[in-house]
């Protein structure tokens, strides 16, 4: 396999020594979308001669393809061919002095168009079964359902919003990897009896926008998962929110603005639209079981676009 400059990017060979009747070479290499690559196959025919009466002299060989008289053939590393051998068969009329014969060349080329991704972030329904993060999400949440959780879920106690970014790749047979990245663009956290006192957040303001991609990602659009083929889709699961290990009488409020987008194999080139979305969570664990404590009816919610990050959402 060569690139447009003639550089070999991958190579391989296959010997059919056992009469399978075919040869197949699978080459894997990392290409650059939009470039053209050339696959060239050289087919060599080996002469394998059977030997009659091996214990006797002179040794005789049968050449059913009638390549050449024995003294004109070369067989390095093997036996040599006595002058007295006989060859038969309807083979090519032109004899050769080589022990291999080039019988064909094949040239083909393939170019993958640069992939594009249509991206959406889901907050309801079940996690898609071909998302490789599905089992971990299911294990953490005790359910495969996306959306708002408040109270006990799985082995956790808290208030979270499970969401799944789904990227549909075009063309669907693009090899990937394609990664859905997640950025935190702004956020604020509050605590106190009324949940109005600012407190530090997982990402300080100085670090924003912060990469929050995580590792519950599926980047191969052709992934064969236990639940079927990914069918040209890539994923990123997230479970932001508040989880408690101890009783905390304070209200915790979390307001976060995210942006999701997909990047190509180089990890940098953006190949989807940017999808802004937000989450709002207000939670308390005063009773030992987490409860949703909305500051107003729009709290404990999510949506496309951006949210106010003030404690009261004004």
């Amino acid at each position, binding site marked *: 396999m060569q690139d447009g400059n003639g550089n070999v990017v991958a190579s391989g060979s296959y010997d059919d020594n056992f009469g399978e009747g075919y040869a197949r070479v699978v080459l894997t290499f990392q290409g650059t979308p939009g470039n053209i690559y050339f696959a060239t196959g050289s087919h060599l025919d080996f002469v394998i001669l059977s030997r009659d009466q091996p214990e006797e002299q002179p040794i005789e060989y049968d050449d059913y393809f009638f390549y050449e008289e024995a003294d004109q053939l070369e067989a390095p590393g093997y036996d040599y061919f006595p002058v007295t051998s006989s060859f038969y068969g309807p083979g090519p009329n032109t004899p050769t002095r080589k022990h291999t014969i080039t019988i064909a060349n094949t040239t083909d080329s393939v170019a993958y168009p640069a992939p594009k991704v249509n991206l959406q972030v889901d907050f309801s329904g079940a996690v898609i*079964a071909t998302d*490789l*993060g*599905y*089992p*971990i999400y*299911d*294990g*953490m949440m005790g359910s495969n359902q996306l959306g708002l959780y408040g109270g006990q879920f799985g082995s*956790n106690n*808290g208030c*979270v919003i499970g969401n799944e970014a789904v990227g549909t790749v075009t063309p669907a047979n693009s090899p990937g*990897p394609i*990664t859905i990245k997640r950025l*935190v663009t702004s*956020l604020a*956290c509050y*605590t106190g009896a009324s949940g109005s006192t600012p*407190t*530090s*957040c*997982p*990402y300080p303001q100085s670090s924003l926008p912060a990469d*929050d991609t*995580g*590792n*519950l990602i599926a*980047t191969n659009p052709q992934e064969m*998962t*236990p*639940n079927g083929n990914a069918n040209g889709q890539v994923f990123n699961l*997230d*479970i*932001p*929110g*508040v*989880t*408690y*290990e101890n009783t*905390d009488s*304070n209200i*915790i409020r*979390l307001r*976060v603005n995210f942006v999701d987008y997909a990047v190509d194999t180089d*990890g940098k080139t953006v190949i989807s639209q940017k999808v802004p979305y937000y989450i709002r969570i207000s*939670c308390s*664990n005063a009773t030992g079981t987490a409860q949703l404590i909305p500051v107003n009816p729009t709290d404990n919610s999510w949506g496309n676009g951006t949210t106010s990050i003030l404690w009261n959402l004004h």
Partner: protein
Amino acid sequence: MKISLTVTAVLLGGLMRFSSAQECTALASHSGKEAIAYLQTVTGDARTISCVFTAFQGIASLPPDQAVPVLIKYLGYERPLLDSEKHGVFLTMDRGNLYPAVQALFNIGSLHRGAVEPLLLTYLGEDHDEQGFKSGVYLLYVLRHTPAAIEDLKARWTKTTDPAVSQRLHEAAQALMNWCLPRKMCEDAAK
């Protein structure tokens, strides 16, 4: 064994103290080798969490053959909590958040296929504390998923002559069963 960090480190024969975020920024400006030295020599509790992040970022920036053996040793290391996390606020629940070596190794393994798995399988065959074991199993899942992860473990336990190693690899496979849907596919892979 739980690994904990402090902010004192010996770097390239000299003594440097990382007691503030600014000094940790200085650590980042060095090559990853200084970060390795930092993590390998620190003891006690971390006082400056930014130093921990910086050190892991520095190591992760090394070539994979240098970074992976170091990061593997820290799979069970749980970073100190941020103030917000002490209140319970987390922006993600995946294990790479609190166990920085998990995320660093995942990032390397995603870019360089096959760079992490061999040493990770060796790690899972060794005796580690509960968190190290959990991190190792989690990392193997997110890198390889099931049933491939279980097939990897099986290939390793088939080769080993050490019954203790084999036992640990079987335990890792059993832990992976929790994330295997449909489960029977993994049970078949483990046979």
